[in-house]
Structure formats: structure tokens, C-alpha cells
């Protein structure tokens, strides 16, 4: 089973009210290191077979038409998730703790 990961973020010039609320809450828990938060979306698209170039192209099209709205959001990445890797660890290249 293959998986394609699509990441969508609000455009930099669009005020992100959710991120603003999160950055306001962090210091209340003692996290004073973070001066800004922007909140985006991550989609994991599953396919029955391999992730072929055609599948990736289709995922890119889906990302541009349905998964994001180009007026307010950017598609940051459309990538294949490798089979054994922890999908959530892919973005940073480092596995998250098991």
C-alpha cells in the first residue's frame, strides 16, 4: 500500500487566526521560546498499489483543486511516503519516537 502526503499552509500574507490563538496559549504552559505559530493541514492519501508518477501527478492536481484554495493557501509539498518509515517523521527526515 502506498501513501502520498500533501501539506497545505495558509499564505504568508493571510492572517492565520488559529495560529495566533495557539501562539497566545503556549506561554501559559511555560513555552516562552516561540514567537509565532502558523497552522496548516496535512493530508495522507492512500493508494492500493505503488505510488507511480501518475499517482503523484493526480495527487498534485487534487491538492491544487480540492485540498487547497489558492486564494488563501499554498500547497507546500506533495511527496510519497516510503513504506516502512513513520509517515509523521518524514517531513523532518528524522523518525519520531516509537
Amino acid at each position, binding site marked *: 500500500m502506498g501513501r502520498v502526503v500533501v501539506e497545505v499552509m*495558509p499564505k504568508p*500574507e*493571510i*492572517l492565520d*487566526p*488559529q495560529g*495566533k*490563538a495557539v501562539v497566545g496559549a503556549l506561554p501559559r504552559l511555560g513555552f516562552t521560546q516561540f514567537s509565532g505559530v502558523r497552522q496548516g493541514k496535512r493530508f495522507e492519501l492512500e493508494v492500493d498499489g505503488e505510488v507511480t508518477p501518475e499517482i503523484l501527478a493526480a495527487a498534485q492536481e487534487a491538492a491544487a483543486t*480540492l*485540498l487547497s*484554495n489558492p*486564494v*488563501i493557501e499554498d500547497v507546500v509539498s506533495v511527496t510519497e511516503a516510503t513504506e516502512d518509515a513513520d509517515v509523521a517523521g518524514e517531513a523532518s527526515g528524522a523518525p519520531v519516537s516509537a
Partner: protein
Amino acid sequence: MSAIEPTPAATSVPGIEGARIGVITFPGTLDDRDAARAVRLAGAEAVSLWHADASLQDVDAVVLPGGFSYGDYLRAGAISRFAPAMAAVVDAANGGMPVLGICNGFQVLTEAHLLPGSMVKNDHLHFVCREQSLIVENARTAWTNEFRRGQQIKIPLKNQDGQFVADERTLDELEGEGRVVFRYDGWNPNGSRRDIAGITNDRGNVVGLMPHPEHAVERGFGPASAEGPRAGVDGLTFFTSVLSSLVHA
């Protein structure tokens, strides 16, 4: 305080008998019945349309009502925009048919690219519900021709994702072409760019706005007005406007 007289139903406007206005219901639509009622109070026939039906049943105009279609999942209006009925709405709108998007319906119209810009969460993050004062900026559209430019009206507003956003170039175009139809008056309730509450397309047949005209159409059930509490019927003018635009089309 004096009792409020109910509005006589079906005021007779010459030439509009037989006008049929469709109201589309999506899964999660809330205000379709109110919109249909507003259509009837204006003197036209309300036709219920279902999102999964590709036919608009030969209606003369269409209302996309408010609510939370598909639970606002993904983005408000994003999934509804691909409903079979919407392909027909886009075709009809491009052919000049009057289309009104209210609240969630406005969000669907932006997702369908019939109107520019988009709506994001209110800047203060709270759901807002109030009687909202607006200034009519464009009284030449299919849905506003019985207002006058600069007129102050009051209709209910209730939303979570009501902050209208667009890039500066698009906003300048909207202003330059007179396509800002309504602006919030007194207080901007959601952080919308340039206090914009509603806009139109270049032809003036497609109008979208966040506040709810269909909730201000009958004395006794509307916002407060100079006439008394709950006496405001400013919303009815949207529906009588479209009837007069159909007569003069």
C-alpha cells in the same frame, strides 16, 4: 409598546407572477426554509433544489442559503462547490441568471470561482451573531436594485468563518469596478478586508454576502428597526429587487 402587525403575505407586484426562484439544499444547509419563505413573501414561487440533482428545473434565479454544508470540513463551501447542482449554477450564472449566495452560500460561490476572494475564520476567533448595520455600496445589481446607494440597512449576521480576504490587487479591482455591494457599518464584526460584507461579479447578476437578508423579511421576526422591535424587513428588498430585475430583463 404597540403590537407588530404581520406583513401581508404575497404582496402583489405586477408582472412577477410566475417567477420561480430556486433554493439549493446541501447536506448541512440550515437556512433553506427561511430563504424559500423570503422568496414567497416577495411574491414569487420558491422551488426546492437538491445539491445532488444536476437540473435547476428551469428556475429564473437561484439562492444558495446559509448553514454549514458538509460541516465546513476542509474549508467552508469547499466540498459543496463540486455538487452536481453547482455545475448547473456556474453555467447559469455565466449565462446571466441571478444568483445570491448568503453566508455559507457566499463561501460556496468563492470556492466555485464565481466570486473572487475567500473567507477565513473571524479575526477574533469567536462565532458572531448580531443585528448588523450595512451600507449599500452598489444598488445596480440584480439583488440590490431597489435599494439606493449609500442606504443604511440592518439584517442579522451569524458566522464563524466570515472574514473576507483577497489580495490587494483583487481588492483594488473590486473597489475600482464598483463591485463592493455591502460594507459593514459601525463595527467590522469579523476582520473582513476593507469592511467588505458583500460583493458582485462584473455583470452584477451574482451577489454574495455574509449577513442574512432572509432573516429580515417579515414584521415581528426581523431585527429591531425605527418601526419597533423585530420590525426590520430590509432583507425583503433583496428578493423584490431580483423580481424587478427579472421583469426588466
